[in-house]
């Protein structure tokens, strides 16, 4: 093999196709609910749980506070022990004296007091520091989805399982939430405006449109919408809402009160019809959503989970994600055909030049309007149904 052929080979391998986002009407969904540190599990194997059932709880050590006692008292560090009023492990109250002295018959006083309720962790005659720590605080994790406990993780938590409709978004903001699904637009191209957000959206997960305009985003947050699911979002509107610019797509910790899931991308993006249809079918049901997104190795996409409250029959068999072949339904995810849906016609083996002059592995796609186009394989994703 020549160097040139070899480079081609590398190019082929380096640009494998993007696995598609899941849009499933019926899927066995499992969620691992785990404490950050060991604690007590509150559920039993086989228990039925709701969205907010406590699964496990623990006590997280309190925050430590460092007090530079020797410097505050104006004494040598090595003599700190002589001035201590408390010792390591003693419980203390806010304002309680930790160390200090009275001199000149009480005319000159110098005391270091505790800024918190808690206990004394360390007294150091080397650094002259006292470290006090708050009492541990309880942390509880909830089930997040409704379903059945199928596994107990000893001292850590449990695994919850349910049959559910499962939809992945491409990007999200905010953490776990749950609420009733409400579709606010049947038109996947509609730009959602503030007047589309009515008071009855409060506490619900609202779905629709190619975009939520800036005012609509603000209104949804204001009235207490639990979640937004929409096709696209404008980059600067997101910045405006958060108050800062996102650099790397690692999200989920934002605290705006409303979880946002974008299904297609940035800009006005027609919502995938299958996603919209699925959301309509389950309108009125309770759903769990999580905007947490991590785009790096071990990608994490935001999700919408609608546990089935009744038996759901689906017409077609599951199509397993088995790679692309002629007939596979795909979506193009980069210009110039961004967002277009189509069917794979052929997968040429040889590398082809595209307009940018890059020699890449390509795929021939027949779009829904009947046009046939050539796009890099890296620029399509399989539609998993």
């Amino acid at each position, binding site marked *: 093999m020549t160097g040139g052929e070899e480079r081609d080979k590398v190019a082929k391998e380096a640009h494998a196709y993007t696995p598609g986002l899941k849009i499933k009407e019926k899927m066995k969904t499992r969620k691992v609910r785990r404490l950050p540190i060991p604690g007590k599990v509150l559920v039993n194997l086989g228990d039925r749980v709701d969205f907010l059932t406590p699964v496990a709880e623990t006590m997280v050590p309190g925050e430590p506070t*460092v007090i530079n006692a020797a410097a505050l008292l104006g004494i040598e560090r090595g003599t700190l022990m002589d001035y201590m009023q408390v010792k390591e492990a003693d419980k203390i109250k806010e304002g309680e004296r930790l160390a200090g002295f009275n001199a000149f018959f009480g005319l000159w006083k110098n005391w270091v007091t505790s800024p918190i309720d808690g206990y004394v962790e360390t007294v150091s005659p080397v650094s002259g520091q006292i470290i006090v720590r708050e009492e541990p605080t309880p942390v509880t994790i909830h089930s997040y989805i409704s379903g059945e406990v199928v596994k107990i993780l000893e001292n850590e938590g449990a695994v919850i399982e349910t049959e559910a409709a499962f939809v992945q978004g491409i990007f999200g903001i905010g953490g776990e939430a749950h609420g009733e699904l409400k579709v606010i637009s049947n038109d996947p191209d509609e730009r959602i405006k503030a007047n589309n957000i009515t008071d009855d959206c409060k506490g619900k997960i609202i779905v629709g449109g190619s975009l939520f305009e800036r005012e609509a985003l603000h209104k949804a947050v204001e009235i207490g919408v639990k979640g937004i699911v929409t096709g696209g979002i404008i*980059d600067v509107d997101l910045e405006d809402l958060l108050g800062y*610019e996102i650099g790397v797509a690692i999200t989920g910790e934002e605290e705006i009160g409303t979880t946002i899931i974008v299904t297609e*991308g940035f800009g006005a993006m027609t919502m995938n019809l299958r996603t919209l249809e699925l959301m309509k079918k389950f309108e009125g049901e309770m759903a769990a959503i999580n905007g947490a997104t991590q785009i790096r190795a071990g990608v994490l996409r935001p999700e919408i989970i609608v546990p089935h409250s009744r038996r759901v029959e689906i017409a077609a068999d599951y199509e397993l994600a088995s790679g692309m072949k002629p007939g596979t339904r795909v979506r193009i995810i980069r210009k*110039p055909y961004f967002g277009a849906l189509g069917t794979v016609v052929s997968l040429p083996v040889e590398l082809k030049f595209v307009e940018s002059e890059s020699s890449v592995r390509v795929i021939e796609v027949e779009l829904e309007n009947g046009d046939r186009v050539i*796009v890099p394989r890296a620029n399509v994703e399989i539609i998993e149904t």
Partner: protein
Amino acid sequence: MTQTRMPLEDMEYILATDVGSTTTKARFFKKLDDNEWHYIVSGETPTTVEAPYEDVTMGVKNAVKEVEELTGHKILDEQGEGIMVPFDGEKGVDLYCTTSSAGGGLQMMVTGVIKRMTGESANRAALGAGAIVMEVFATNDKKPPYRKIQQIRSLRPDMILMAGGTDGGTVDHVVSMAELIKAADPKPRLGTMYNLPIVYAGNREASRLMMNILGKEFALNCIENIRPLLEVENTEPARRAIHELFMEHVMSHAPGYDRLMKWTDVDIMPTPAGEGMAMQLIADRTNKNVLGVGLGGATTNVYSIFDGRFVRSVSANLGMSYSICNVLKEAGIKNIIRWLPLDLEEYDVRNRLRNKMIRPTTIPQTLEELVIEQAVAREALRLGLEHHKTIATTLHGARGEVAFLRGITTQAVAETYLDMMKIPIIAGTGGLLSHAPRRVQSMMILNDAFQPEGVTMMFQDSVFMMPHLGVVSTVHPEAAWQVFDRDCLVRLGSIIAPRGKVEADETVMEVELEMQDGETIRHSLRGGEVVRADLPERGKGEASIRPGKEFDIGAGKGRELSVTVEGGVVGIILDARGRPFSLPEEKSQRQAKIREWIKSLKMYPENVLDEGRRS
């Protein structure tokens, strides 16, 4: 030099892999009949560090299987559970080694007493060892202790490097930092079943106290002081200790690494450390200063070997796919748009970059998209070099120390010792540079971002294999260099660019270039002009360069320089835009200028210059 199972002179086959965050890349080398080492073939498969596989050796085996299929040469043992070493006349290889950055590479936190002194030294040592430094804490930084504790706790590093105090100097500041770390009780990233490793490289007199404070809950390793004297920086023992602990305490807990460690002949090396060794190899072999860069999807690594001093910086959030929007954030949209020959709206470019961020494996199909990504690359590299210059600085010395101890906060201003005029070689690696459809594109991306001065030879990695050759060079430098020189380094050509600001429409330089075939070409360049002349790879030309009176090509202002220049796949670029150069502020003037350069250098097909193009 590492002990190998086969004497170096008898070796015939070498296999090297790099276990990257997303792809595991195998490179296969062979000594051919000419008694020289050659690159033969590659295998690339997805890395299998994450669920559901959670065993990196699966990805390595798959990549090696590809090599086997392509060459017919058997490398994996009969059970497929390891690499056969040595070559037995039919199958196996004589040397197997690997680098790794899977799971985000080696992530470290470093501490010092004074941020600009021991903090900086510790930072340089950790970076030089191939780590991503998540945070530098120092006794004299402005953060209150509770903030430090919160941060230390949330960072979850793989390892901590602690420095502080010269030998015989401050003890209490070092101890107070240790107490903070103990109070924060940080947990290692790869699980809670082992103690977090800490390398202590501070005042030797504090070692016993450090052991008392940290010895029980952490895997503490006390080594030589990184700053035994204010004027001396001794990073090598820290770098070695980091590599040892990386193997013992970090890699051994990553999924499958316990097995992979048994396969390799030498320790697994962090990928950037391998890349850095490759850059070092260029400097060693050419005996010249080198500036190198690895422009990746998530990070940008910059390396300099300047007057024998090796420094690496990593800009952990500057990259071309995962981190593309961090470049947008750091550089600002205006700085990206300024490189575009096209009239595109800010919001449009911003949304396009966001879409690349959320679908990082997509590639530009249209020219417009390619031009945008290459504009971002210029900014990522520019920022990466700026960051590097803050690390490649002279040692901050006694004045700052005395000031600190007296409670005065003044500090000496950092001065980088890097002088672009004294860097005759620039080398680049990474997907965007390697995959640029025209080599002149990658050469100009490096030129615009780094603005080399004088006469500078430009190289780029052909097929990503610098880390592989870096780790091979620790065992078999001759083999590594032979492959490196022949198969890895693409000679792009030379850039001739005088230092001096272009103020008016003036002659910046006159160049006479005598080619090997005797042909002589002459160019007189006015301010803002860029010209390309052909000179093939490994070809040489004799250049006489007469700079204008306010310009310096390396011999002093206005003084002529005669020098041998090397050619490359692009040739020679004569750059009379001045150093530093700035683009016209006014949009239409700027775009016209960029279109002029594109045309002169044949950077893109002509139709990208059409105004009003849209994709």
